[in-house]
Every structure is written in C-alpha cells, then in structure tokens.
C-alpha cells in the first residue's frame, strides 16, 4: 500500500502535464468546440509519445494509464483519452487506431467522438465488437456539452468480435475510463470555481469566505477525492466488475453534484463562453449519463456483489 506516486509515475505525470500545458487548456477546448472538431493534433502527439499505450507497457499498467487519463481530462484535452488508453488495451489487449469511440449496440443516442473516430468499440451484451468506421457513417449532432457528438446514419457493420465475454470486459473498462475522465473534469471545475469565489467580492468580502459557500465546495472536494481513489484502486485491480461500477457510480453521482454547485456558485458568469467553467461542467453532463449513468452503474455494482454469486469483487 503506497498512495503517493513513485518516481516513474511522477515522471510520467510531469511529462504528460508539460505536454498538456502547451497543447491543451480551456482556450483550445473552446476554439475546437467552435469548429466542431476533436483535437486530432493532440491525439496524435499523445499517441506518438506513448501516453496512450501505457497500460500495456511492461513497466507500467492500468493505474498509470488512469493517472494519464485524469490529467488529460483535467487539462480539457479533446481526445479519446479513456477509450484509447484504458478501454482499447483492456478489451482488445492492444492499442487501436484513434480516436476510439464507444457505444452500446442499438443505441440511437449521440455517441462522443463518433463522427471523428476511426475505431468503434461496440458493447453487444456478451460480446464486444471492433468496427472500423467508414467516413460518413456518423453525422454530427449539435450540442453544447463541449464534446463532439455523432449519431449513426444507417446500419453499422458488425465488425470483428473480440470474443465471448468481451462485452463485460468492455463495460468494466468503460466504467473505469468514464470515472477517470470525470475525476479530471470535476477537479478542473472545482479549481476554477475556487478561483472564482476567491476573487469575486460581494457585500465587501470574497464570496468564498461565506460559510454557506465554503461547506458546499468542501463537500464537493470530498466527493472528488473519493472518486479519484476509487477509480485508481479499480484500475490497479484490473477493473473487476464491482469495483469498476462502484467507481463509475460514485463519480457519476458526484459529477451531478459538481455540475450543480459549480454552476450555482459562479453566478451568471459561469454560464458564459468567456468563463472557463463550462468546458468542464458541461462535459460532466455528458460523462455522467454515458453507459446508463449512475443508476445503471449502481445496479451493476450491486448485482456483482450481492446477486451474481457474490464474487464480483
């Protein structure tokens, strides 16, 4: 048991944060959103630098991949961090041509990054399928959630099965990926809100000095810390169904709380495109609904622990 990054982990974090410091950030996210694009350059750069392959590295693993995904999300990077760095290695055992989108078979709803993705991983229940996306297979969906969304235009090809039982594997890693992305986005939303309430003065004092404000943000901090350690442990343990769904359920519920509180405490400014909050708060709305949202994660965790023979842990 050691809950501080070791030297190698710290080195990876420093390296990815330095790259993200130059290439990601709120301003870039806002610009890309205006263009309706994902960040192809950043995706390529992260890929070439090996940050998206860390899970399969001999010296590294899924915990290190989670640390990287948290960091990318926190920096607002518009790349398929969780799907590329966690889900693809977790279910296919190899990295896949990115961007990588994730969807549930038959889902008619919008799918994050589908219109930009080269590879699609489909949860079809027992099996997962890998599909190469043809140009034009997905149309762009208009949205304010700060992720590019796409919807299938016609029938999608079946693709290649990843084997019996791969569906569950896909869902487990998908949950870990979602939780890790939510942790990064929640942290950033909290940070910009703390900054806002520290600088903003009303009634002659910083609004962040009012206890009613402080307690709400402090509670948010507890929930973010909890989500962070839950997902890290789940990844370290290889995404067992119960731990993965526990991390995702908790993060999704926390994300709802963070959305509400950070939007509330930043007043009218928080709704604008000139303030950075929306980059993360709006993404939280997308992340917390994916794969059925907190309710579905929670039912899955409970089934794994108390119904499916109880050996889900």
């Amino acid at each position: 048991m050691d809950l501080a990054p070791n030297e190698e982990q710290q080195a990876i974090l420093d390296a990815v944060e330095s790259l993200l410091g130059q290439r990601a950030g709120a301003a870039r996210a806002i610009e890309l959103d205006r263009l309706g694009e994902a960040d192809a350059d950043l995706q390529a750069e992260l890929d070439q630098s090996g940050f998206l392959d860390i899970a399969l590295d001999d010296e590294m693993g899924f915990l290190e991949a989670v640390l990287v995904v948290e960091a990318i999300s926190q920096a607002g990077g518009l790349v398929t961090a969780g799907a590329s760095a966690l889900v693809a290695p977790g279910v296919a055992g190899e990295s896949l041509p990115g961007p990588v989108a994730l969807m549930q078979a038959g889902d008619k709803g919008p799918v994050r990054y589908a219109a930009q993705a080269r590879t699609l991983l489909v949860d079809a229940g027992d099996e997962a399928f890998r599909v190469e996306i043809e140009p034009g297979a997905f149309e762009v969906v208009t949205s304010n959630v700060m992720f590019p969304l796409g919807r299938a235009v016609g029938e999608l090809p079946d693709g290649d099965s990843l084997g019996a039982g791969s569906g569950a594997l896909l869902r487990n890693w998908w949950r870990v990926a979602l939780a890790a992305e939510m942790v990064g986005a929640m942290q950033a939303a909290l940070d910009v809100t703390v900054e806002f309430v520290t600088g903003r003065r009303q009634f002659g004092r910083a609004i962040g000095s009012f206890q009613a404000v402080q307690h709400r943000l402090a509670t948010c901090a507890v929930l973010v810390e909890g989500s962070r350690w839950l997902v890290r442990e789940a990844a370290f343990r290889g995404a067992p169904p119960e731990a993965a769904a526990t991390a995702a359920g908790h993060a999704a519920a926390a994300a709802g709380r963070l959305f509400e509180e950070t939007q509330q405490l930043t007043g009218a400014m928080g709704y604008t495109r000139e303030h950075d909050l929306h980059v993360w708060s709006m993404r939280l709305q997308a992340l917390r609904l994916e794969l059925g949202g907190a309710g579905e994660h929670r039912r899955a965790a409970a089934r794994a622990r108390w119904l499916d023979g109880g050996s889900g842990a």
Partner: protein
Amino acid sequence: MEFSWLEADLTFRRELIDFLQRTLPEEWDEMAKDGPGGDAQATYSREFCAALAEHGWLTQHWPKEYGGKDATPWRHAIVGEEMWKVGEPRGAQYMNVNWVGPTIMKYGTEEQKALHLPLISSGNVLWCQGFSEPEAGSDLVALRTLALREGDHYVVNGSKIWTSYVNHADYCFLVARSDPESKRHQGITVLLLPMDLDGIEVREIPSVVGERYFHEVFFTDVRVPVSCRLGPENAGWDVVTYSLAYERVGAARYARAVLTLDALAEHARERGLLEDPTVLERLSEAREVCEMARLLTYRVIDLRAKDSSPTADTNVARVAGTMAERAVSELALAVFGTDALVYGNFGESYFRMAMTAGVATGTTEVNLNLVASRFLGLPRE
C-alpha cells in the same frame, strides 16, 4: 502508488481474525450492544486487551524502547479495522494505544513513562478524555475548568461533559486552565489525573444512544500532585494538539459499515427486496461511500506512514466517514421499515450507534471548515 497489502500483513490479518474467533466469548454480541462504554464491554476489555498484549498486538506500532515492535501504521490500521468489525472489544483502550500512550512518550517525564506505558501496553488500564465542557464544545479553547497551583499540587475545580468511558476509567487525560487570567490557547495545562482522587463525581447523562454513553464529571477541590502534569505548565495546548494529531486516524467505522451493508443486503434478500432496482441502487450508493471512506482513511494512514505532519486530508477522511455511516443508517431504515423502531433490532442498533458520527471527535461542520480553509485554500474574509 499501488494498492496491494504486503504478504506479511495479509497473514497477520488472518491470524488476528482467527484470534478473534477463538477469543471472543459466545455472549459477545450481547455484551457489545451498548458500545465500548457499556459496562460489560468495559470490564471485558481488560481481559481481552491483556490477551491481545500477550500476542504482542496491542501496541505493536509503538517504538521498541517502549515495548512496541515499531510496526507500521498499516499494521495498526489492520488491528483497528478488525476490532471495529466485531464491535471494538478493546473497549476504551483503543484510545490508550492510539494517542494517550504516544502523547506520554513525547511529553512525559521518565517517571510518568515508567508508570503509564507498561500499564497501557499490558492492556489493563482504562483512560478517558476530559476535553469537552458545557461551554467548550467545538470551540475547545473556551474551556474553563481550573487547575490552580498550590505548592506541589494543582487544585482542580470545574466540570467536563460527554466524557466517554469515565465511569470505568482509572485515569483521565484532563485539559484545564492553570492561569485563571489567561485566554484561549494560553494558560492551559494537561494533567494525567487518577480517577480515585477525592472530589470527583461522575453523573450519567441519560441519552437515546445507549446506556452509559454520556457523562458529566464534576471536580471539586481535587488535589492533584504536580507530578501528574504532562508537559509544561500553561503551555499545554501544544500537548493537546499533539494528542489530537494522533487521533487523526480515528476509529475504522467504515469497516463496520461495510460489513453491516452486507448483512443488510442479506436481510433485504430475505424480505424479497433485492429484486427491487431502487434497493440495489441504494445498496450500491452506500457501498460507494463506505469504500470512499476506506480509501480516504488509507490516504491519511499513508501520510502517517511517511511521517508527514498532519494535513487536511484528515478532515476530508472524517467527513467521508460520517457520510458512510449516514448512508448505511438510511439503508438500515429502508430495509427494516418500522421494525427498525424496536430497540435491539439490527437496523435500530446500527443507526443508534452511527447517529453520533457527525459530532463525536469533532463535528462535520468543523471538519468542513478546515477542508475549506486548508484543503481548498478558501479565504477567511
């Protein structure tokens, strides 16, 4: 960063669980129904802790020079978890080994160390914590109990309240004001006060939590030898701060909460509620919070294991611990319905013991204040 236990620690946990199964008497559950302060449990703790001490497990985390084994905080945390899971058979003595002993090691005279540390590490002494007063709750430095120097004695007058375990205690870790003109953090002195001195009266305060849960202690002209003073006169606040820092890894309440949750799931199954998706979701939600509390407590233990000074991570963990207790309590009521109104019902017992989590050892609001200022760096004005 990694989340695995050392093989030796896993083995130790198994041995400890075996020991508990062999050692706890058949009527243990009945004995434990009023918590560590109940009469049966307090009495039994002397026998139990002595047995634990014989195995070298009571104070293994203490330094070798004081009879410990220099075991890691993780090892001691395993003891805490397994003890809480079964209802804390160490009774009040968990306080001795967690913070009373270590504070005496730091501030005690040779004479005090020679007297108290062997008593504590042999498992047959009960302490209580005389901090809170009627006018000094969250704001501990508002304390008024006086300990005025008269020659080679302090004369103590005043009262302490909410003092757990005092009815069985041999000693009280008493915080008092030795300079009557002083304010706030100044003029405070700590006394290791023997409870058999003249002038001490203990009254139970009946409560809905359990029998013998709360007490008020009145001190009338109690003459305490100066040799009982721990640390310097009038500068006892440092001693108090040090002791509270050791208290930072509190009781492993989450460990019991998780077990309770599994038991509640079984009750839900028997009542045909486990098919209900809402029940499943709520079970899971409560488990998330318990797991969160466990990991955030581990974070504090990890910092302790690395000898870092206390950080606001402690307060984060405390808030999470209370959330866990509350979530499980709510579920206990949902599963048992009105049966949870009956004294001694499984759900009732749980919510009764859990209901004090947000107040005992520092309230949730005080912890949130500290998370806001020290963890988030929010402004005071």
